[in-house]
């Protein structure tokens, strides 16, 4: 008997361990709790979506997205409401964090096994849909997906090589400073409104708070963006436009010298210091959470995870875009933060389009999603959230400041995976190299110049 019991136990443990070996991403058909159905029914009564269609097929569609916990929760609630509104359509979902998300999706795009509906990054159209065969031309489902909610200039950014509409933009975004006001208060100074203020803050922090306090923290990619803001402002032209790299090696060196001067002036910690923190990102970095890193340069759509990391004890505020880089403009750029696309392998494109329309244009879905994917670009979505006073004030303030000062659109080639990769990308190599003392800024500028030239060929 004992042996039997042991065998059964061992078998159960083996079965469990086999389960544990599976994918960590969540993948399960969603259910429809009654409570959500009732809530959805109330919201549906308010306004009918433009893409609402009575003659849909009962089917199962799949949907992949990346994000943080709050986005996952909102999207799951929206899916439940969608299924309640359109009985018979089941949405099978798969979500995860950004880390390694792109790698997994890229392989799915290549092997034609991607989900029906995909949240995509704006450079994926050029990178993974080079021949226009991966993402469906959304003009073919325009009777279901209300494309009139987007301006032509934004839809044009989503076109593939064949001129088809590969995706619809969910929101636009750009980088802006967020400051931990509590730390600045502790140092007895105002939050920086200019580069001069920021440099002065570096000195004050070291004197009043200690050498381990910095007014701003920048990782390798953040440094590339900061250098780009500086150079775009100074040179008054975008770093890449229409796939052409616009700068010389000398100009790149100037940008790198600028970043290095921030490190030398105790404005930003060295990358060696940041590596020593052993944190994947600033929102989980103990020094950011405790106020030792008192500023970040982040996407306007991303402050919530930092607010949540700081908790109630510290106050995160939106800063100003700097106007004293030495040029005519702020150098600020905007880009499509993310987009929604349908795979060409999707067997139910109409129903997939209904889901996108529900999430982006249907007031009911929009109300549930709120600003979880940034300030929406769809006109009806903005109106719905504005009327309901549901636009997150911090995100709205950041977004308005970015869009008001944005001088250039960011070219997708800037985010080429070979340049941007956090593990072995050229940005990381160049800025790590300078910060660790392996490269001079001249050598790093040469590396960056060669890489940009190759990507833009």
């Amino acid at each position, binding site marked *: 008997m004992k042996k039997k019991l042991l065998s059964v136990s061992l078998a159960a443990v083996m079965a469990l361990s086999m389960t544990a070996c599976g994918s960590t991403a969540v993948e399960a058909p969603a259910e429809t709790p009654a409570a959500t159905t009732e809530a959805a029914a109330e919201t549906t009564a308010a306004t009918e979506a433009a893409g609402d269609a009575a003659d849909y097929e009962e089917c199962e569609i799949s949907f992949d997205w990346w994000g943080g916990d709050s986005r996952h929760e909102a999207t799951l609630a929206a899916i439940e409401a969608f299924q309640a509104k359109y009985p018979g359509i089941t949405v099978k979902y798969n979500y995860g964090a950004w880390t390694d998300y792109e*790698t997994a999706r*890229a*392989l799915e795009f*290549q092997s034609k096994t991607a989900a029906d509906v995909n949240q995509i990054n704006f450079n994926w159209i050029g*990178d*993974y849909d*080079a021949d226009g065969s991966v993402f469906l031309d959304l003009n073919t489902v325009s009777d279901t997906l209300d494309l009139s909610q987007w301006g032509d200039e934004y839809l044009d950014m989503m076109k593939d090589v064949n001129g088809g509409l590969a995706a619809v933009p969910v929101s636009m975004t750009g980088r802006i400073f967020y400051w931990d006001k509590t730390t600045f208060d502790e140092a007895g100074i105002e939050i920086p409104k200019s580069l001069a203020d920021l440099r002065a803050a570096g000195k004050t922090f070291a004197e009043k708070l200690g050498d381990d306090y910095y007014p701003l923290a920048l990782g390798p990619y953040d440094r590339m963006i900061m250098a780009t803001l500086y150079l775009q402002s100074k040179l008054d032209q975008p770093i890449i436009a229409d796939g052409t790299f616009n700068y010389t090696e000398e100009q790149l060196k100037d940008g790198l010298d600028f970043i290095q001067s921030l490190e030398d002036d105790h404005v930003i910690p060295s990358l*060696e*210091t940041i*590596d*020593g*923190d*052993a*944190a994947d990102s600033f929102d989980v970095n*103990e020094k950011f959470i405790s106020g030792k890193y008192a500023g970040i340069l982040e996407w306007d759509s991303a402050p919530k995870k930092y607010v949540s990391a700081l908790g109630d004890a510290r106050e995160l505020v939106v800063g100003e875009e700097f106007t004293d880089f030495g040029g005519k403009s702020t150098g600020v750029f905007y880009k499509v933060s993310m987009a929604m696309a349908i795979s060409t392998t999707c067997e139910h494109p109409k129903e997939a389009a209904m889901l996108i329309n529900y999430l982006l244009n249907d007031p009911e879905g929009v109300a549930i999603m709120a600003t979880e994917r940034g300030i929406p670009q769809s006109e009806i979505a903005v109106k719905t959230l504005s009327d309901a006073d549901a636009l997150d004030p911090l995100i709205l303030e950041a977004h308005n400041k970015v869009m008001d000062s944005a001088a250039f659109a960011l070219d997708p080639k800037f985010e080429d*995976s*070979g340049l941007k*990769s*956090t*593990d*072995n*990308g050229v940005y990381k190599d160049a800025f*790590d*190299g300078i910060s*660790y003392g*392996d490269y001079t800024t001249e050598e790093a500028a040469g590396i960056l110049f060669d890489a940009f030239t190759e990507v833009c060929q």
Partner: protein
Amino acid sequence: MNKTLKRNMGLLFITPWLIGFCVFKLYPFASSLFYSFTDYNLFKGLHEFGIMNYVETLTKPANQKALIVTFKYAFMTVPLKLIAALFIAYILNFKIKGVNFFRTAYYIPSILGGSVAISVLWRALFKDGGLIQTGCALIGITAPNFMSDPNWALFIICLLRVWQFGSSMVIFLAALKGVPQDLYEAASIDGAGKWKQFFSITVPLITPVIFYNLVTQLCQAFQEFNGPYIITKGGPRNSTTLISLLIYNNAFRTYDMGLASAMAWVLFVVLMFFTVIAFWSQKHWVYYSDEEGK
């Protein structure tokens, strides 16, 4: 049952395995060799044939550095792990109180493998201001910045694998149980101490197991991926970028399958070389108790 069927019955039984072998082993093996001589990129296609990937693998400084780091890793980890495993197995072979608890406790790290939990634990231990630095500071020692110092980062990756010596330990323990007790008794009568007994009786008699552990650990070390991937991501400054991590980065970050395949084949050849050396060397130091002796 006709004769042909009877004659081929064995083949029929192993057909499922053969299909699996051909589809999941032989085909990838052969196709990676083919791709290693091409510039195949997952999203840009195949345009060129030649040995350019092998030239790049062996001449590009970053790749050379990865090969050197892999050698360092393997030659630090394997001996340390074998010594730790044998030492603990030797102790756990004595009749001491609670020995089963200790055997289980020492084996547990092996089953944890490379997981997120281990990554969190290791980072908490070795980050700046982490448990190790704090502990060292308490006794007046200034510990290095393990996570950000390129000279020390590889050490913590090695330590992770050495810490997971449980599986080798169990194999050593089984071998130690097989050493005849009468040899120890005879040696004791002759006045041999514990160390003398260990080096003159135990070690020679378990050399086949030491050899087995050496080869398997060598193969494992050269293919190590999880440790640097979950803890340091290959940094700082590529000081923990082992060749397997570079293969992954080339294959799945930049999609250069041709280059990644060539690197995998270089790794295979290196591994094969050391395995052949190990097998060749066994006639000099491994004792088999069959009719041939050695």
